C-alpha cells in the first residue's frame, strides 16, 4: 500500500515536471541548415512583391506613420536620394538591431533548443536570442539594439514578443536603407514557422504608439540553401572602403590609398 502511494506520488511529480517544461526537444521543428532571405533588403511590401525596386519612385507602400514620423521619413528618403542618408552599419560598429535583423543579406542559421532559439546572421554578424524557458520580459529592461525577446511554441510555430528596443533615439538603428525608423517605444510580435521543407516564414506585427497609427504587418521568408553550404566570418572592418563621412553623412568610396573618390 505504502509502495503504491509512493509510486503514485512519483508518477504525479514526473508528470508535473514534464508538463512544466517549455517543450521537449523531439517535439520541436527542424530548422537546421543554412538559409537566406527571399527578396530585397527592404521592409516595404511593394518592393517585396516585385512592383518595384527600393529606389523606384511611386511604388512604395509606406508604413502607417503618423504625420510627424511621415515627415521624418520623407526627409530620410530625400537624403537617401542625395547619398546623404548613411546606413548605420556602414561604419562597422553597431548591431543591425531588431527588426532589421530579419532584413539582412547573406546567410541565416536558426538554432532551436527547448529553452531558447538563436537566430545567427552572417552579415554583421548578429545574434537574436529568443527565450522560451518561461521567463517574462523584465519590467525595468533598458533599451538595446536587438531588445529583449521571450516566447513560446504553439505547435510548430514560434511566437515571441520583442521589447526594449532603442529605435532611432540615438540615430544608429534603421530598419532599411530607405530610412525607415521607429521610436524607442516600438515592440514587435513575431510568428515563425516552416511553410515547407525549404521555406521559413517570419510574420512580424510592428507596433509603435509614438510613430505608427496602427499595427504594421511585415512578412519575410527565408529559403533553405543547398546541403553543405558554408557560413563565413563577416569582418566588416576588414576592408571597409565605404565609410560614412561624419560631417556630411555621405557614404564615401575610397581608393586603395584611402583617398576619397566620390568627392
Amino acid at each position, binding site marked *: 500500500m505504502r509502495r503504491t502511494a509512493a509510486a503514485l506520488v512519483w508518477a504525479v511529480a514526473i508528470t508535473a515536471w514534464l508538463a512544466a517544461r517549455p517543450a521537449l526537444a523531439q517535439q520541436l521543428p527542424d530548422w537546421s541548415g543554412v538559409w537566406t532571405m527571399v527578396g530585397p533588403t527592404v521592409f516595404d511590401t511593394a518592393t517585396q512583391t516585385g512592383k518595384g525596386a527600393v529606389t523606384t519612385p511611386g511604388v512604395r507602400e509606406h508604413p502607417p506613420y503618423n504625420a510627424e514620423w511621415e515627415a521624418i521619413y520623407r526627409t530620410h528618403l530625400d537624403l*537617401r536620394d542625395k547619398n546623404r542618408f548613411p546606413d548605420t552599419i556602414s561604419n562597422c560598429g553597431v548591431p543591425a538591431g531588431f527588426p532589421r535583423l530579419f532584413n539582412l543579406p547573406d546567410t541565416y542559421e536558426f538554432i532551436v533548443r527547448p529553452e531558447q532559439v538563436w537566430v545567427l546572421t552572417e552579415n554583421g554578424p548578429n545574434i537574436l536570442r529568443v527565450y522560451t524557458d518561461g521567463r517574462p520580459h523584465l519590467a525595468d529592461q533598458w533599451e538595446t539594439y536587438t531588445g529583449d525577446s521571450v516566447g513560446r511554441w504553439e505547435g510548430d510555430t514560434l511566437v515571441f514578443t520583442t521589447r526594449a528596443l532603442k529605435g532611432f533615439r540615438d540615430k544608429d538603428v534603421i530598419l532599411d536603407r530607405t530610412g525607415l525608423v521607429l521610436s524607442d517605444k516600438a515592440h514587435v510580435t513575431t510568428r515563425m514557422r516552416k511553410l515547407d521543407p525549404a521555406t521559413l516564414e517570419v510574420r512580424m506585427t510592428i507596433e509603435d504608439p509614438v510613430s505608427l497609427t496602427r499595427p504594421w504587418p511585415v512578412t519575410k521568408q527565408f529559403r533553405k540553401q543547398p546541403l553543405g553550404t558554408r557560413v563565413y566570418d563577416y569582418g566588416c572592418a576588414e576592408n571597409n572602403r565605404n565609410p560614412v563621412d561624419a560631417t556630411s553623412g555621405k557614404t564615401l568610396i575610397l581608393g586603395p590609398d584611402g583617398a576619397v573618390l566620390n568627392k
Partner: protein
Amino acid sequence: MRTTFKVAMLITLAVLGAAPARAHHSAAGFDNTKVKEITGTIKEFQFKNPHSWIQVMVEDEKGQQTEWSVEWGSPNNLGRQGIRPSTFPPGAKVTIRLNPMENGGPAGGFVGAKFPDGKTIGRWE
C-alpha cells in the same frame, strides 16, 4: 554527393551570373544605368569583407597608368558562388565592364569580366 553539390553550385552561379551583390553599403556614387569597359592588368584582388575590390592598372594612349577600383560582392557570397582569391590573379590581363562613378573617377561597380582566353565571369553577353 560531392559531384551533385558542385553541379548545384555551378547552376547557382549560372543563375546568379555572379551578379553584383553590394548589399552592405549603398552603391550610391555608381551609375547603374551605364556600363563602361576597361582593359588592363590586374594589380590586386582584395577578397575581403564587407566587399571585394579588383584593382586594375589601365594604361592610356599616352602611356599614363591609372589604377581603377572595381567593387564587387562580399567574399562570403562570391565564395559560395565559386569565386576564389585566385579568380583575378595579379599580373593577368583582363577586360572589365563596370557601372562607372557618376563623377568619372577611376572606380565602378563590377558587372562582368573577360580574360584573353575567352573565359568570362559575371554578366557578359
